[in-house]
């Protein structure tokens, strides 16, 4: 093991790799800040340029984009309530109220501290747990995957703003939208009505741009003024960075949630982001402060999404199963270099694998330094007049929706979901449940059908396997618990 670490460090510390990592991190920070244009888009655009690179440089540059985007995504969540990355969406819940109180720098310091600590832990888990965890994930049957998808939806719906029933209805809406397109089991067209655009389903990027960016823009235009209501910035960046470590329980808990969910293919950083937020809220001594600028509300989502990214590479590198868009693109890059992902990669290319792991570790530190250097400039956005910023954001976000697939229809889809999202949010429907439903839709349906096929259409398969039965029981407890608690007279503070 020690030999591998030295081998990896030697490979990653070469000047060439360092330059590619800096370039990747800066690109990642930049695209992370732009709503709609996330890390996977930038990685996909740059894949053709990696042909001529050596495998380690290519992988490190692409992975640095992903790490940088995860850091950068929190900037717009905090400053504008518009997540630059889907995986930073929950950061906005408390980051934006903090920015409104003029504490944008503190919020970003918290985000940097949590991101750095969690990213380092995530990479260490990736290094030391790749083999054993991949074996454990193999033991998960489709019934468990389906149960996990439902658990993800339930947790988010129960903990989201507004009523649980509205949250569950939004989850069902997200799942229903994910049904549009060609069905993955039989290849049947569903709900396309002859539109070629709908064959691949509703693209995720325009929906996110609409639900988060356009919805927020509408509110911003209605509000006017500046984002920081005081019109000035208080608090220090380093103070925020230090404050992160005053909440060790939240930091460790959220890092663990992100790291665990990252290992399960299909769950991804976005779901981890929201789950960690709701878990932190439930375990907090002051849950009523969540949504009003609670430091734990920033630490939890940022720690989870940054620990999730490295661990999502575990099934990708060891089994060839991508956990999400980022690991899928990295797998494409590995394949384009003539390599085959899988257990053999660890024995045939230890320099590449361990160099990559060490590079991720160095990349996390590098991303934090660059992020901290750039933060004072980012924070100035909150005192710019909304009258000037709103149209600028409108054109950048809708350009992001267009640029993803170069399709005009994506712009209209983003606008539609923006207007729908505005009215839904105004009436207390948690948009996040809709997004989680959409993300988990394909996984839920795929594993649902696989479980039925394996069991010869015996529906009891979901309830007879101990693990899936336990997960479903947990879902039931989560839905029923608030009502039971109320009846027992232990109401307490309402979870928002």
């Amino acid at each position, binding site marked *: 093991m020690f030999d591998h670490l030295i081998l990896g460090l030697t490979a990653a510390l070469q000047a060439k790799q360092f330059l590619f990592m800096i370039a990747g991190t800066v690109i990642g920070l930049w695209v992370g800040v732009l709503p709609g*244009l996330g890390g996977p888009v930038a990685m996909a*655009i740059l894949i053709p340029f990696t042909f001529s690179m050596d495998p380690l440089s290519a992988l490190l540059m692409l992975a640095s984009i992903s790490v940088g985007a995860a850091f950068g995504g929190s900037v717009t969540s905090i400053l504008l309530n518009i997540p630059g990355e889907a995986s930073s969406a929950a950061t906005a819940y408390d980051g934006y109220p903090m920015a409104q109180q003029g504490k944008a720098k503190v919020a970003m310091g918290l985000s940097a501290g949590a991101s750095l600590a969690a990213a380092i832990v995530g990479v260490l888990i990736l290094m030391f747990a790749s083999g054993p965890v991949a074996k454990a994930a193999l033991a998960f049957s489709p019934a468990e995957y389906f149960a996990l998808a439902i658990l993800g939806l339930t947790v988010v719906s129960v903990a989201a703003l507004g*009523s649980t*029933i*509205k949250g*569950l*209805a939004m989850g*069902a*809406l997200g*799942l*229903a939208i994910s*049904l549009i397109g060609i*069905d993955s*089991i*039989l290849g*049947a067209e*569903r*709900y396309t009505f002859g539109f070629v655009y709908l064959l691949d389903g509703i693209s995720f990027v325009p929906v996110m741009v609409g639900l988060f960016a*356009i919805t927020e*823009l*509408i*509110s911003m*235009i*209605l*509000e*006017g003024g500046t984002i920081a209501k005081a019109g000035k910035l208080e608090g220090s960046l380093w103070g925020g960075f230090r404050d992160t470590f005053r909440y060790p329980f939240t930091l460790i808990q959220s890092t663990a949630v992100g790291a665990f969910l990252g290992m399960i293919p299909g769950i991804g950083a976005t779901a981890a982001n929201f789950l960690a937020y709701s878990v932190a809220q439930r375990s907090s001594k002051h849950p009523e402060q969540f949504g009003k600028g609670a430091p734990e509300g920033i630490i939890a989502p940022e720690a989870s999404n940054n620990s999730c990214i490295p661990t999502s590479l575990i099934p990708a590198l060891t089994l060839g199963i991508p956990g999400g868009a980022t690991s899928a693109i990295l797998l494409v890059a590995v394949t384009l270099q003539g390599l085959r992902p899988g257990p053999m990669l660890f024995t045939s290319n230890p320099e590449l694998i361990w160099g990559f792991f060490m590079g991720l570790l160095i990349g996390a530190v590098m991303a934090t330094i660059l992020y901290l250097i750039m933060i004072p400039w980012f924070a100035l956005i909150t005192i710019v*007049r*909304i*009258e*000037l910023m*709103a*149209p*600028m954001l*409108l*054109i*950048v976000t*809708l*350009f992001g929706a*267009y*640029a993803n697939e*170069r399709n*005009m229809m994506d*712009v*209209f889809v*983003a*606008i539609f979901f*923006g*207007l729908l999202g*505005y*009215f*839904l949010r*105004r*009436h207390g*429907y948690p948009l996040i449940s809709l997004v989680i439903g959409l993300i988990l839709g394909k996984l*839920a*349906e795929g594993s*649902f*059908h696989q479980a039925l096929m394996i069991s010869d259409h015996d529906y009891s398969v979901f309830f007879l396997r101990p693990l899936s039965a336990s997960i479903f029981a947990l879902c039931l407890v989560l839905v029923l618990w608030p009502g039971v608690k109320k009846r027992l007279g232990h109401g307490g503070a309402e979870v928002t």
Partner: protein
Amino acid sequence: MPSDARVTAYRLEEFSLIALLLLFFIAIVAFAYTLPFDARLFPLIIGGAGIVLTLVIALEQVRRRRVGAAAVVDEDDPVTRADWPRYATALLSAPAFGLLFWLFGFIVASLAAMLLIPLLMGYANRRQLVLTAVITVAALAVVAPYLLNVELPQGVVGDWLIDKLALRAG
């Protein structure tokens, strides 16, 4: 807007949303019936669950209305403070931009948005406005094709004009 009218409008909006959701879930179930069994099973479950959940939400709203639940409109809701031109600007900016983007392309739509939206929101410093608009659009016009490799569309009308005037390169 008087308070009563505001509450009525809010409730109307609430029930319209519920109706829209109900309609959507009914459509999911209805259009699933023509599909093969394996392709329709999951839609039927999700659509069915959606219908039940939406009906529960509707019943809850009716119950709240019957018991005369306290003010449903949040006083912090910016809509309550915004006048109708600002409300219209907020709701129509994105669709209008989308329409202009489709018809006349990104540059024209962006310039129009950058110049008109601030004016409609009451921004007075026109010099700063024009400067910001020109710099923003020029920056995007350079960044998109050269750094992101995204050709900016000229729009339906723009393409027609380019073809008509034989301006297309090559």
